[in-house]
């Protein structure tokens, strides 16, 4: 039982990453109308930008080379505080890169959704190549101390690290912020209007180009955060985002492509299922833990067949 609970906890953490990535993918689809294959690599860009910022900031905060101490006030600031700065940098850089890709590539193309999809593969390759050239093809990690399981959760028989808590809490905070933005601000209303009908939105005075920029910024910013959290709970490597892309697509399609709230639920479900696959064998289902992705993809294909608009979309 506690093993299953542990998988569930892992699933929640993984879901945080998937949810953040799914929202962005779905958001861009709803406003821009194409499946963005560069979204995974946008996560990677965010993660690596944060890596760069983190080493810079912690060096600055701790005051040069004296970072090894790891204790005292400097250590506290050098760790969590620098990480918050790094997270922000990762989100902003991902957003800038995404807006640049819209301005330099997508908006210049006179093509169909399929043409944009293919172009996005080119954009993905360029992003990944630049990450590889700058950071090398090796695994890296944020230089934060890895703490053991938090004692408070021990009674439940599960191991929860501080990193896990950070990912889950930050995801909830970001999702809540997005909800407020979409529902209660003028930008959010304009985004929803543009998503429903771009021509109508433009005719009613909404500056849709600005909405498109905002969409890219928000979608990529969240993806960047997802990338940082992925790097935090695992490690960083140039393929990290791309390898996650299909799972993210599975989540988005489960929730209904183009639906932001669907993406949240789809991300949660797919993330938890993904991590529960190993638990299945303890219930007598003989399945290799390596098939976690496979299960997610098969769910995706099944949804495409049975309910192509997803669980949150209207049935056809």
């Amino acid at each position, binding site marked *: 039982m506690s093993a299953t609970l542990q998988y569930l906890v892992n699933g929640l953490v993984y879901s945080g990453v998937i949810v953040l990535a799914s929202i962005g993918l779905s958001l861009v689809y709803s406003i821009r109308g194409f499946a963005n294959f560069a979204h995974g690599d946008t996560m990677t860009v965010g993660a690596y930008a944060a890596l760069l910022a983190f080493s810079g900031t912690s060096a600055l905060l701790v005051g040069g080379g004296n970072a090894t101490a790891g204790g005292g006030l400097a250590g506290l600031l050098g760790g969590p505080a620098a990480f918050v700065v790094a997270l922000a940098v990762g989100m902003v850089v991902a957003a800038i890169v995404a807006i640049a890709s819209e301005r330099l590539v997508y908006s210049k193309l006179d093509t169909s959704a399929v043409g944009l999809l293919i172009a996005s593969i080119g954009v993905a390759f360029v992003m990944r190549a630049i990450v590889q050239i700058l950071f090398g093809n090796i695994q890296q990690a944020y230089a934060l101390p890895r703490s053991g399981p938090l004692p408070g959760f021990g009674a439940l028989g599960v191991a929860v690290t501080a990193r896990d808590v950070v990912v889950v809490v930050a995801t909830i905070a970001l999702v809540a912020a997005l909800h407020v933005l979409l529902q209660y601000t003028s930008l959010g209303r304009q985004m929803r209007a543009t998503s429903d009908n771009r021509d109508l939105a433009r005719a009613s005075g909404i500056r849709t180009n600005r909405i498109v920029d905002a969409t890219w910024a928000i979608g990529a910013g969240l993806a960047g955060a997802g990338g940082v959290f992925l790097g935090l709970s695992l490690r960083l490597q140039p393929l990290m985002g791309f390898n996650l892309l299909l799972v993210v697509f599975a989540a988005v399609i489960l929730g209904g492509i183009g639906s932001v709230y669907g993406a949240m639920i789809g991300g949660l479900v797919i993330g938890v299922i993904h991590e529960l696959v190993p638990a299945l064998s303890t219930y007598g289902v003989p399945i290799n833990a390596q098939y976690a992705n496979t299960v997610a993809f098969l769910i995706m*294909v099944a949804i495409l067949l049975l309910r192509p608009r997803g669980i949150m979309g209207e049935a056809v």
Partner: protein
Amino acid sequence: MTNPIRAWYAGLTDAESNVAWSVGVLFVLFVLGVASGVINLSYGLYLLALAGMYVLLSLGLNVHWGYAGLIDFSVAAFWGLGAYGTALVSARDSPLGFTVDPIVGLVVGLALAAAVAVIIGIPTLRLRSDYLAIATLGLAEVIRSVINNQSTWTNGPSGILGLPLFFGTWPILGDVPRGAPTYALDVCLVAVFVGVTYWALRRLHLSPWGRTVRTIRADEDLAEALGKNAFRFKMEAFVVGCVVMALAGVFYAHLQLAITPGALDPTQTFYVWIAVILGGSGSNRGAFFGGLVLVLIVQGTRFLGGVLPSNFPSAAVRLLVIGVLIIAVMYARQEGVLPAQHELITPGTTEGNDE
């Protein structure tokens, strides 16, 4: 005497003559390189064989995307199925524990790909085009994952080694010394594969079948309204293309004499995509040209990696070049370098289109 050639050249469009020139110049450079010893003869022949393989892959994807408009992101998987199909039945190290002649392996590889194509096609080919892209990429990953994890059938991540040369058991051809002579045989083999495939696909394309498939690509509703079973035609196009990709895989397995799951990396799929859209979707000549350019990019950046300092990130540069090329083609010339020009009417039916 020179009239046919001159007439052929005069009939070319600007783009075609440019392409003919660049292919010609490259070929001359290549021959000079080999003759002068700058390019090792074995390596040179190996490159030619690899070029043939990429041409096959491009021809296969061209059936999917160029003919039928299917966004298929499972190229690497079907290529891998061909390779694994033949490796499993012909390799010394096959976990199945028996070996047959590579000719049988060829048949097994193609049949395996055709069967899997049908199984994957049934759920996916009714999907909208962007969903098809995602679904095929996902199912390709499922195939890769199965090959990676079902070690008892496939040897898992370590792959299958000890494949025989394609002509290994043949009289005379089986006895040529390893190295340049066997690579020369490989070049001949792939030339036959490419020739037969090109001929067959051309005949298929310039026919009522090709025309119907093109109609479905342009407007599926219209094709259905005119009584064409779009799903059936898409399925046929999908299977034909997958079999051609598997043929490339069979050839590759007997060229490298080994196959590992790493070869099924989806990046390979996108390499083939750039070949097809660069060459011109729907045009076999374009796919042929795109395949040649692709080997130039892939092997060219490897070659640079060998010449330049060892810390030169050749894989990343290759990725960068291909990424920029994809964007550039979408930006500058969406129809590709050698776009389709033929009316899809069976040759010999009208004056003007018989060749």
